[in-house]
């Protein structure tokens, strides 16, 4: 059974790339039983939202940049 230290790293990694099957499952299992880590996870996505809030970062490709 995972403690919380390892999941805290996995939850961060999950925001940057897909976790392999085994690591994803052990994280899922841990989250089922750990409220602290579920809160941590929501807080990480809040950090992302806050960073992107004011700067209009979105997924639509911008028009071609002007010549430099």
């Amino acid at each position: 059974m995972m403690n919380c230290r390892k999941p805290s790293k996995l939850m961060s990694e999950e925001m940057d790339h897909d976790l392999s099957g085994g690591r994803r499952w052990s994280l899922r299992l841990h989250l089922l039983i750990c409220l602290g880590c579920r809160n941590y996870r929501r807080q990480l996505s809040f950090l992302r939202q806050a960073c992107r809030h004011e700067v209009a970062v979105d997924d639509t490709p911008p028009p071609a940049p002007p010549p430099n």
Partner: protein
Amino acid sequence: MAGFQREMLRFAVLQLRDQASAEDAVQEAMLAALQGADRFAERAKLKTWVFSILRNKIVDIIRRRVREPSYQAPETEIDDADFDPLFSANGHWHSDSRPADWGDPEKSFENQRFWAIFDGCLNRLPAATARVFMMREMLGLETDEICTELAMSSNNCWVVLHRARMGLRMCLDQQWFNAGEQTR
């Protein structure tokens, strides 16, 4: 477009930690944007576009800084042991550091004081760690791109991002969500 200037400057200063280069980047981005501004009837689209130009300028400046001899590798700035106090010996959260429910944190977006604290917390992160985090979250780069720009392994990149998030959430927790600030 002048309306965005303050936001652009905040964005650039946070990432470059240097007022003069931030002002240069904003000015260059505005000049470049002016050439095509009349194509944008909608303010929101214009803003997205101007920020995308500014992002490219910031990446250029970071690219130059990485080549300077004073450049410090981000993976050396924070040690995982710095987080030891948060966890008990068996690796579970200590009861007083266990992440609590932040309620409806998006409400804070409307509050100017929240943004001052948010910026303060970003500034408290070590410079190179903060740079990796902001390249990911504010410039919107993928980790592969960051690794290439900063000549880091993917694994080091993930480790640094993890430490940055850990530090930033802890700072916001102490300075804002648990400080009773937001209800004042």
